[in-house]
């Protein structure tokens, strides 16, 4: 059973790495997040309900772990404004731009709650309902976050970043 689960996780590693990249942004942090997710998932194998989606279950573990770790590593007073910390966000955005282009940089600038929903639906291909289950929020919340994220990405795309986008979309 555990080895079946292990193999499922191995098969999903490429997708886990993509979601982790959207969350953690820096490549090294993203892979550390994937590794931690694997360990947590195997330890919590009993909490997996057979017949449900392994990918959604793993995304949920990863996202919860990211939130926990992220908050732990921040001064308490900065939690609310954490997304606006200029230095760290600035580096994350720059790195995303260099490696993945302007669209990824625009994604990296979004608040975590919007990044998560955008990655799950537009990159990982989850439905609104599946994303709401992963994130533990109502579908209405998923839609409002997703729509804000999409409009922000569009605005970045359309404000003179045309060539970079064309490059990415080829």
């Amino acid at each position, binding site marked *: 059973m*555990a*080895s079946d689960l*292990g*193999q499922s*996780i*191995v098969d999903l*590693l*490429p*997708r886990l*790495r*993509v979601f982790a*990249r*959207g969350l*953690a942004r820096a490549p*090294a*942090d993203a*892979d*550390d*997040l*994937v*590794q*931690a997710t*694997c*360990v*947590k998932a*195997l*330890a919590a194998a009993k909490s997996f309900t057979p017949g449900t989606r392994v990918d959604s279950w793993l995304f949920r573990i990863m996202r919860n*772990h*990211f939130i*926990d*770790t992220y*908050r*732990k*590593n921040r001064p*308490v007073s900065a939690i609310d404004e954490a997304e606006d910390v200029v230095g760290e966000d600035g580096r994350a955005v720059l790195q995303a731009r260099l490696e*993945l*282009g302007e*669209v*990824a940089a625009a*994604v990296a600038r979004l608040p975590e709650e919007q990044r998560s929903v*955008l*990655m799950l*639906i*537009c*990159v990982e291909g989850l*439905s*609104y309902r599946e994303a709401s289950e992963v994130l533990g929020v109502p579908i209405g919340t998923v*839609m*409002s976050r*997703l*729509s804000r994220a*999409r*409009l922000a*990405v*569009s605005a970045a*795309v359309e404000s003179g970043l045309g060539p970079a*986008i064309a490059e*990415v*979309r080829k």
Partner: protein
Amino acid sequence: MNVDDEMLMAAVDGELDAAQTAEIMALAQSDPAIAARLARFQRSRDAVAAAFAPLREAPVPGRLVAAARGESARPSRSFAVTPRWAMPIAAGLVGVGVALGLLLPALIAPVGPESPAFLASVASVAWGPELGDTPTGGELSVPTDGRVLVARVTATYPTEEGDCRTFSVTEGQGRVDGMACVGGFGWQTVALLPAGADGYAAASAAATGAIDALLDSLGAEAPRTAEDEAARIADGWR
């Protein structure tokens, strides 16, 4: 006709039923503004998907494959699996004025006679199963930095996050009190405090107080009795 963004987005994302989708498409045909908004949602989806697509094709590092198979994997640096017992340390004890590192052991307060080297030695101890096998009051040898320290187990506490054991390590005049909790990687040090040997009562009391506060924050109950502890040792702290 007024259609909100979320409705248009849902149409692009295939989240509407056939009738609703047809309605939106008909609106888009007759209203260029709506068509433009629809196209914007389609473009944003395509662009984000395309931006991250190359990552999915990238080779997966071996350490991740090993971790997925449950093979021995080193805890990673910034996103190491940190059970919730590590969080109250950050949240609750910073105000006590102790130095806080992001790595476990999370709590190191150099205030006693202990040399930094001694503290560092204890901090670098990788607990093996021996910590779990030793009953309270017993001692175990812990090799570190090319020498061997002796740790005495002082109690076992059931907490909301699993079992934690307090211990003392003594060397010369120095004594370090600490606590380790059992988790996915075995026993991990969660707190280390210089407690001083005889004559350093203040440091000792501070160490005890800090560990008590940590235990409180973990919802610790009374220490396990010898029988209770023996049963846990027998079943390997599962």
